[in-house]
């Protein structure tokens, strides 16, 4: 990244994203006002819908769970200097992997064996789907951006093919598999909390939110605490220096894509094992692409990605509330708001950052002067 501006780390990590968010909200508020709605009302409905109730909060976190997986996937690849656009396809394949083992084994395996097996299978399927473009990039020079996009298309048609021709029960009209047995069902958060004696409204939020938190922690440890992560980051920041250090850059490219794909592949745990209990179409529905925005907004750091995921989860959940509550405000307006956030925190960050830096500088100088006067 070109850092022609200098600011303290806290400002770079906290203040800057907040300023970007504020500018995005302002711009979106302007558009809301233009279509004759009241921006403050819309925002308050949105915030209340996302965080105002236990149920709303659960939905927000449920959406966020999926974004954490895809956001982390993008971030890991990014640290290896790779732009993985294929989170969507890898998540689809991951869901397929999760679903297939559930369909095959859930009838006779207990939960404690079934659920880990589904996680591993989903991760392996996602990994396999990412390793192929990774290999092609490392050893054949096909650009990973192109191949992962292509692999998204192949993945979605592959899922349709498998569902329609092999998994759909004979005579059924809808394109989906039979329901898994109980042992393949990841408990919902309300069920888990009920065991602990806490009352919580029913929602799609399930235990994979814990898995997502563990994944975020794991990515942090992998990137900044392990030798493999060190080497991956070296390759991503400076391939020529990595080569000088004796790091096998091609291995690292494949490894980076493998970890990335495995993370995306865990989306199936949230959607397939946690909510639907069967394999169906459209369970990813763009989350792979939202992951790119999440990683951008979260500055490719696990902590940032968790917060960005919650933000995007809130936009999904709150946006649905707004579309429901405010007359004449459609879901497309929420998509517009997301668009502004991606624009300002992704592309416009280089416009906003120097302004923030200059503002900080000015504020610092004022403080010092008043301090000097008082002292």
């Amino acid at each position, binding site marked *: 990244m070109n850092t022609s501006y200098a600011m303290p780390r806290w400002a770079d990590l906290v203040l800057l994203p907040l300023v970007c968010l504020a500018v995005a909200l302002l711009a979106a508020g302007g558009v809301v006002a233009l279509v004759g709605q009241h921006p403050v009302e819309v925002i308050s409905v949105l915030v209340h819908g996302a965080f105002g109730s236990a149920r709303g909060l659960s939905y927000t976190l449920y959406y966020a769970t999926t974004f954490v997986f895809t956001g982390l996937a993008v971030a890991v690849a990014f640290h290896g200097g790779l732009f993985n656009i294929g989170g969507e396809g890898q998540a689809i394949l991951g869901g397929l992997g999760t679903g297939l083992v559930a369909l095959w084994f859930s009838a006779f395996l207990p939960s404690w064996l079934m659920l880990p097996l589904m996680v591993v299978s989903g991760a392996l399927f996602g990994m396999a789907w990412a390793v192929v473009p990774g290999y092609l990039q490392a050893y054949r020079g096909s650009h990973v951006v192109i191949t992962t996009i292509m692999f998204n298309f192949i993945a979605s048609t592959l899922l349709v093919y498998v569902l329609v021709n092999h998994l759909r029960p004979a005579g059924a009209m809808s394109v989906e598999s039979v329901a898994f047995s109980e042992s393949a069902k990841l408990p919902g958060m309300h069920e888990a909390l009920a065991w602990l004696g806490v009352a919580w409204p029913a929602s799609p939020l399930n235990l994979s939110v814990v898995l997502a938190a563990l994944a975020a922690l794991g990515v942090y440890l992998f990137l900044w605490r*392990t*030798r*493999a992560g*060190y080497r991956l980051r*070296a390759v991503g920041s*400076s391939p*020529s*220096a990595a080569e*000088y*250090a004796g790091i096998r850059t091609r291995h690292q490219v494949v490894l980076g894509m493998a970890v990335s794909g495995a993370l995306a592949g865990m989306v199936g745990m949230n959607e397939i094992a946690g909510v639907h209990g069967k394999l169906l179409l459209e369970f990813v529905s763009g989350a792979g692409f939202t992951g790119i925005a999440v990683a951008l907004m979260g500055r490719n750091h696990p902590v940032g990605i968790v917060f960005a995921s919650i933000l995007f989860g809130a936009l999904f959940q709150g946006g649905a509330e707004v579309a429901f509550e405010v007359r004449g405000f459609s879901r497309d307006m929420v998509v517009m708001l997301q668009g502004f956030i991606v624009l300002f925190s992704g592309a416009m960050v280089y416009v906003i950052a120097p302004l923030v830096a200059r503002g900080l500088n000015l504020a610092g100088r004022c403080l010092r002067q008043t301090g000097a006067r008082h002292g």
Partner: protein
Amino acid sequence: MTGSAARAAIAVRMTGIQKRFGAVAANADVNLTVLAGTVHGLVGENGAGKSTLMSVLYGFYQADSGNIEVFGRPAIIRNADDAIALGIGMVHQHFMLVDSLTAMENVMLGAEPHWLLRRAESQVRSKLETLMQSTGLHVALDALVSELPVGDRQRLEILKALYRGARVLILDEPTAVLTPQETEQLFGVLRVLREQGTTILLITHKLKEVMRLCDQVTVMRAGCVVQEMPIAQASIEGLAEAMVGRKVQMGRLQDDVLSLGDVLLQASHVTVRDAMNVVRLDDVNLNLRGGEIVGVAGVSGNGQSELLDVLSGLLAPIEGELLLCGQRFSAAKWLDPRAARSWGLAHVPEDRHARAMVMDFAAWESAVLGYEALPEYASGGWMKHAAMLQGTATMMERFDVRPRDPALLSRSFSGGNQQKLVLARELGQLPKVLLVGQPTRGVDIGAIEFIYAQLRAMRDAGCAVLVVSSELDEILALSTRVIVMNQGRVAGELPIEDCTEASLGLLMVGGVA
């Protein structure tokens, strides 16, 4: 100075120039007066503020305060266009030329005198030919820049500035990439230009050249002018002392008593071809013994970089054999950088930014690059952060890396301090063979002295050292034996006693010593 009365007009006068970057004062109340029709040397270490001062003059930066007068008139220079309009031209250290265009197209670029290209070309050509006649700056106008040798490119840059009406010419480290012969030619041209009334500002750190060419010299240190004098009153020792602020020992040490050890590295018949199948190294044979420093001289691009890469395992030859500390490698099974390190070879690469460090890593992460698998830094796949930080702190202490902050990003250190950290890392493992490319490129005089001392200490400890440098002075100061490369071949080998700038320079361009 002869005829100084007639030339007393002042070309550039900068008064009270202040320029701050954050907390750092790059220029603190700098005054500079350049007489018209003279060659004025501007010397100082990296970060002394000479480039900032010239950038203010050429309009890259605006000074926070201070005044500029050009030929007696107050001038406000907001950008390079303003500077050019005032008759100021600049030749940058890294040439600003478009490789895929011809020499003439480069001159014309951005200053086309007519919207029809053919008309423009004929006008520019006739004007350029007159200019070339009068100044002696000859360049093949229809050749692509990518085909021109470095010396020609530089002449083209000067021509470009003159074409745009430069009466004051700023040259930034013009001889860094030239052979001694090319340097001689350049100085001839600059003298002609001075005779014709052009004022020349020469930024350099080669004091010898200042003494030979300049009429007046200004020394900067830490953002201030510390000395300004006519060249007749200056001496190399005095200028070096003024630059650094203390006495420095740069040249060859007299007490070199050497004890040669075994042959630690032996390369035979090494031939390298690049991706375009062009021969880069041609049947190179080389021996390195413990306790010696072998200097590799040559004009940049004659195979020195490939030699370093092939010996350190970054590049595999198509033919040849290597014996490294008793271990034999063939072209079919060449060593890789990891194997090279494990057999006791350390490599300080030429390109510090692209190779030696990961610029976006903190210093403590760059300080283990290449050694991240050592048990002292990692165990069971986990990095030991505390040990890495501790190790970096020790390196910084031993090699006087400033600031002593292991958490600072690698790119935030000055060139000299980056180089010291890289040396600390590579010397820290007590290698048997040490390859060093451009040990002091972009490094301050004070740090150069320190780096030389470290390399000599390695030699005395029995290490076999190979130094590739484009600075002949450096080769002469360090080496016990010198190899000259030309077009991928070893053009000659001389013991240090027989080396002079003239004999090496001749070998470098393909002659016979």
